[in-house]
């Protein structure tokens, strides 16, 4: 495999805010590369720089052998962009929208018609092609939003949080669409703050926080960051801050964090700490409502690396 996207030491500042801080990664042709991080981590700014919408303060971007700084047009031609927002014209029909975006990438005539038909089929909306976008549901709009980004068959597809705010059925359709596009040879850069999506889709993942990549690798490589530890999740009512401090002192607990009424503990010996943790909480007057133990996932990796949940 050859590298199709190369990002080196990329930085972007907005006044005093450092949105992206020295980010480097590369994407191999044909893979799905995930950028995982909470809102504000710098994922969208990174994608905006790759798609030449923003100029970096430092660093370089190369796409399909073309440098963004000197040959933005060639870079743009190699890319398909699916923005986080539904960037479509509500008063145009789905077919009109797709035809417009196809023409913007130089398609015309029979080639354009073929591409529009293919994109509608990909979105599963052939029978509603002549209806205005404003009459579509949120999920249907998202599907056309994706179709508009791929109908010119780009070499690299940039997808920025493409499943925000949609129903589970449409989300599944979109995830399957991404898999299908990738299996046809399209390279995908996928950003999300939903770890399940990234785990399901991506060959390699970079975890971002505060403008930096704090970990990168395959799913298994990232799981190894937490070194075979289990994640113990305890739901509890009436937990006082002092009790949390006490619980952190229980032998065997590597890390203990709280999100609202939920505690997450990283441990290599879940069997031995479980009883001690529950009894410490109950004796302090808290009421434990549920306990679960699972293998580490990206959530626990993020928790381990940052000390906070992805949902924070």
């Amino acid at each position, binding site marked *: 495999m050859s590298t199709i996207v190369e990002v080196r030491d990329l930085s972007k500042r907005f006044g005093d805010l450092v949105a992206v801080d020295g980010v480097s990664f590369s994407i191999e042709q044909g893979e799905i590369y995930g950028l995982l991080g909470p809102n504000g981590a710098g994922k969208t700014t990174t994608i*905006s720089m790759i*798609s*030449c*919408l923003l100029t970096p303060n430092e660093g370089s971007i190369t796409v399909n052998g073309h440098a963004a700084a000197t040959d933005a*047009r*060639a870079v*743009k*031609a190699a*890319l398909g*962009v699916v*923005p*986080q*927002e*539904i*960037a*479509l*014209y509500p*008063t*145009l029909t789905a077919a*009109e929208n797709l035809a*417009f*975006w196809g*023409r*913007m*990438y*130089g398609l*015309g005539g029979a080639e354009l018609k073929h591409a529009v038909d293919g994109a509608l089929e990909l979105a599963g909306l052939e029978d509603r092609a002549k209806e205005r976008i404003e009459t579509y549901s949120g999920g249907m709009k998202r599907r056309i939003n994706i179709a*508009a980004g791929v109908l010119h068959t780009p070499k690299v597809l940039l997808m920025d949080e493409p499943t925000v705010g949609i129903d589970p059925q449409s989300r599944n359709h979109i995830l399957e669409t991404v898999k299908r596009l990738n299996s046809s040879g399209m390279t995908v850069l996928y950003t999300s703050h939903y770890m399940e999506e990234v785990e399901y889709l991506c060959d390699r993942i970079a975890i971002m926080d505060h403008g930096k990549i704090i970990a990168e690798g395959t799913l298994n490589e990232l799981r190894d960051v937490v070194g075979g530890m289990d994640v113990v999740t305890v739901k509890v009512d009436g937990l006082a801050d002092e009790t949390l401090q006490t619980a952190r002192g229980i032998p065997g607990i590597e890390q203990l964090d709280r999100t609202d009424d939920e505690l997450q503990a990283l441990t290599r010996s879940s069997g031995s700490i479980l009883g001690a943790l529950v009894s410490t909480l109950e004796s302090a007057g808290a009421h434990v409502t549920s306990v679960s133990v699972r293998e580490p996932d990206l959530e626990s990796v993020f928790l381990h690396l940052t000390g906070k949940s992805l949902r924070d």
Partner: protein
Amino acid sequence: MRTLLTIARKDFTVILRDKAAVLVMLAMPLALIFILGSALGGIEESDTIDAKVAIVDLDTGETGGLFVDGLTGSEEIGELFRIEVRDDADAVRTDVEKGDLTAALIIPTDLTDRIAAGEPVALEVLQDPGSRVTAGVWAGVVRAAVSAASAQIVYGRALAEELDIAVGVPPSLRGEDPTPPIGPAPVPPSSTPITYPPYEPTLDIVTVEEVEATIGIRVSMISYYAAGMTGMFLLFGSMFGAFAFLKERREQTLARVMSTPASRVAIVGGKALGVFMLGAGQFFVLLIGTGMLFGVRWGEQIGATVALGLAEVFAAAGLAMTLAALGKSERAVGGIGPALIIFFAATGGSMLPIEMLPSWLKPLQVISPVWWTVDGFLDVMTGAGFVDVLGPIAAVLGIGAVLLAFGIWRLEYR
């Protein structure tokens, strides 16, 4: 170029599907043209009743006075015309040329002498071409008066010769006075048989010469407001162009367009062209619509009118980019846009006839594309040709170029 056209076509379609835009750009101007034109001046020739005319009697003899008395003494004529008897023929000519008078009758100095000498003589009827129908009615009235006078004189001479009674013959023709005013010929007593002598009618030598004023052609109020409202509402296309740009920026479609290989020139050019196409369509609808619905005559040189209109549409495209640059949001443009357009329209004569505007506004008019356009429209309506309006066309294009350049310079794309 292809990308530019793609963007222009898309913008044209998107704005055209906005019902509010269509209402403001087409329905409102047509309604206002009808309301203002009807209220202030009536449709076309409805001002033929109660028109103002003048008579100037320069005749050194007394025949002219007979005409004056005959015309001013008739109740029927008085219902149709407000007649002023004036002394200054030059002032009357000027008033007809300016359109202050619909028509006038100038009685020459030698009318009586020429009739007495049996020489041809002409009465001059001046007409305002802007009110041809009314002026034509006035000329007909004058002709009827000449005919009546002729019959009266003939009848009078016949009686004078046969009965030795002088009736209705001007003193200058008979050497006696007084003479009754011209009017319906008196009916002789039924018991008296009348035998008409074989005389030629004396006033057959008097002809009526209709003269059309050559300058100061007026347009009807409906035509005036067709020009004025078209001049103003063509600029409203700019608002919808600016709205479209800002909405695209807010909804991120502009960012998506910017992420395609299209150049920035093609994107901005396409957006400006979209506004131009919209304005051009609006202009042709108003041009044809006002002609068909209200009988507005845009002038003989329709090419000059079209050039003026399209020049203003170009200015509207430039204004769209300036508004998009000045207003950071659609709400801001909704405030700035109408204010700017109404300023241009007020100084440009869209709301009140240009000649009624105060003189202190004149320096401001040069920056108003509406003023140049409306003034040009009116010139063409009153007979000007393409060459005559090249100046206004160049001025409007210049204003448009400045607005477009400013907009492109200051536009924010994100």
